[in-house]
């Protein structure tokens, strides 16, 4: 019933936004976090061997399965690898690099950016890039925030560090241009991330409410239905995987089924993050009017307008901010 439409705004003919007339773009992205988020959450977790092993499973077992599934599907993925993952798991990261996948920055210790200053954020990016450059011989051009938000000013500093694109934001299902710097953003969607559906740990607990692990078939159903819609509307489908989550003997089968389904379409472009960002930049198409990223930049550019702190202040603020 939903009209096939690449614009998502009416029953117009399909106009491709992607190379060679492809109908939609697909980015398979991997966060090679291993045990780093567990360590970053609390230094005391360094003594929790069992919990750390939940994350290390990704390096020890999951990566090989994931690499095999990607190879069998003929997919070149983008792997966001923290600097410490390179140091702790050089063999596994070397395999990823050797298989020809794109390596991108994911901080150094999977830092929580919410508790860092902008210079500390820059330092995390710099160290992460140095570790990847030592392995691969070149600095990564892509970046994904490990956790938390960018401090004002980070976008410009990323560009200085050789970063040309990011896959950290939300608010769109197409790439967009950062208002503050020469960066292409390839936005994310929680429903296309394996971690919220499947990750589990008893103590410290994840999820916080210790909900049940999601039924595998339902998650594959969600991912498949989202792909169907991204394909229909001509969008950029960004799957976000973690080796310790998707790389189990059973879950890797979900991914293989999904790849088989997507490969059943002959008008899908599998791009790496770098390829998609380069393509989008070369199109030279500005963000659509009213883009949340542009609106956010406008509203935060002038302190004291949007930044009303309390409900009372919100009520009494002069309506000048709303133009």
């Amino acid at each position, binding site marked *: *019933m*939903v009209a096939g439409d690449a614009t998502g705004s009416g029953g117009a003919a399909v106009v491709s936004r992607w190379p060679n007339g492809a109908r939609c773009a697909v980015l398979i992205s991997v966060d090679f976090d291993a045990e780093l988020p567990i360590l970053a959450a609390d230094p005391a977790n360094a003594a929790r061997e069992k919990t750390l092993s939940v994350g290390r499973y990704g390096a020890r077992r999951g990566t090989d399965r994931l690499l095999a599934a990607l190879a069998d599907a003929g997919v070149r993925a983008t792997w966001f690898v923290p600097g410490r993952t390179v140091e702790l798991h050089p063999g596994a990261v070397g395999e990823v690099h050797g298989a020809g996948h794109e390596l991108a920055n994911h901080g150094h210790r999977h830092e929580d950016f919410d508790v860092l200053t902008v210079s500390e954020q820059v330092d995390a990016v710099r160290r992460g890039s140095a570790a990847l450059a030592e392995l691969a011989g070149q600095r990564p051009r892509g970046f994904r925030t490990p956790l938390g938000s960018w401090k004002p000013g980070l976008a410009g500093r990323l560009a200085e560090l050789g970063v040309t694109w990011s896959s950290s934001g939300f608010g769109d299902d197409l790439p967009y241009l950062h208002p503050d710097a020469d960066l292409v953003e390839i936005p994310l969607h929680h429903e296309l991330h394996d971690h919220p*559906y499947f990750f589990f740990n008893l103590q410290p607990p994840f999820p916080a409410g210790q909900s049940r692990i999601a039924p595998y078939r339902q998650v594959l159903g969600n991912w498949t239905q989202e792909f169907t819609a991204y394909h229909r*509307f001509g969008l950029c489908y960004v799957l976000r995987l973690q080796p310790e989550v998707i790389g189990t003997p059973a879950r890797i089968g979900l991914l293989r089924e999904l790849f088989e389904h997507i490969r059943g379409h002959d008008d899908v472009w599998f791009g790496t993050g770098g390829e998609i960002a380069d393509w989008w930049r070369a199109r030279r198409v500005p963000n659509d009017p*009213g883009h949340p990223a542009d609106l*956010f930049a406008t509203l935060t550019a002038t302190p004291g307008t949007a930044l009303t702190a*309390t*409900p009372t202040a919100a*009520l009494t603020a002069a309506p000048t901010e709303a133009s």
Partner: protein
Amino acid sequence: MSAPIRWPGGARCAVALAFDLDGPTGSAMLDGSIWRNPELFGLGGYGPFRALPRLLDLLDEHRLPATFFTPAWVLEHWPDRGREIVARGHEVAHHGYRHECYFDLTVAEQVEVLSRSQQVFHDVLGETAVGFRTPSGDWHAETTRLLVEHGFSYSSSMRGDDRPYRHVVGGRVTDLVEIPGRWDFDDYAYLAYQQRPAYPSGQDRIAGYDTTLANWQAEFDGFRAEGLCLTTLLHPKVSGKPGRVLLLDKLLSYMRAPGDVWFATCREVAEWWRATQPVPAALPS
């Protein structure tokens, strides 16, 4: 059971499709924390920016009307989107200025939210809202009276019935019609997810789309079997994601299939209810 409700045209039941177009408003905007959280702003802004046009297309294709409860801040910042809703034949109604929780406001603050928002509706859409859905949690003990005094036609805020009814203020039955909703038909209860601040608070899993659709189809079957009035609490930023538009597509097809459902805006339901239903003599509290 009470006597069956007679719906217009002999329809078996009423469906008032409704969306809460919250955008990035809500508690994080009220306390200012959203201005340090571009991820949260993006998740919210996606609703009016990307999801709404797709949902309007979907409603066009099914030729169905809907009501969009919209905080006035969203109208101010995406005014063209608001006018597009009206131009496509739908209703825009009150949902706070920045999605305030009326329970937490003084009477004076509630009046200010109502007045300021109605001014925005007038400026952007050329007419004020006649409908009200209380944002966030509860409303205030005085909110009902304020809605009557401000001339609102209806509210769609409560959860305690599956049929419209008239609100009672100070022991008097008023013309303010309530079109109650149900959490069962709130997409937040199934599909919404964000990390900081965490939603759900325990970071429960995103539900399966197929099982969510099955629940909603079952609810519709029940409402239709008993001849009731179903309204929805769908959020474009949640249900307007690409794959979930396909979910809603299946749901709307399912609801249309029997051919005996009265689809109307909440405003039309309230007008019809006032015009046709006897005013109860007894006063339920």
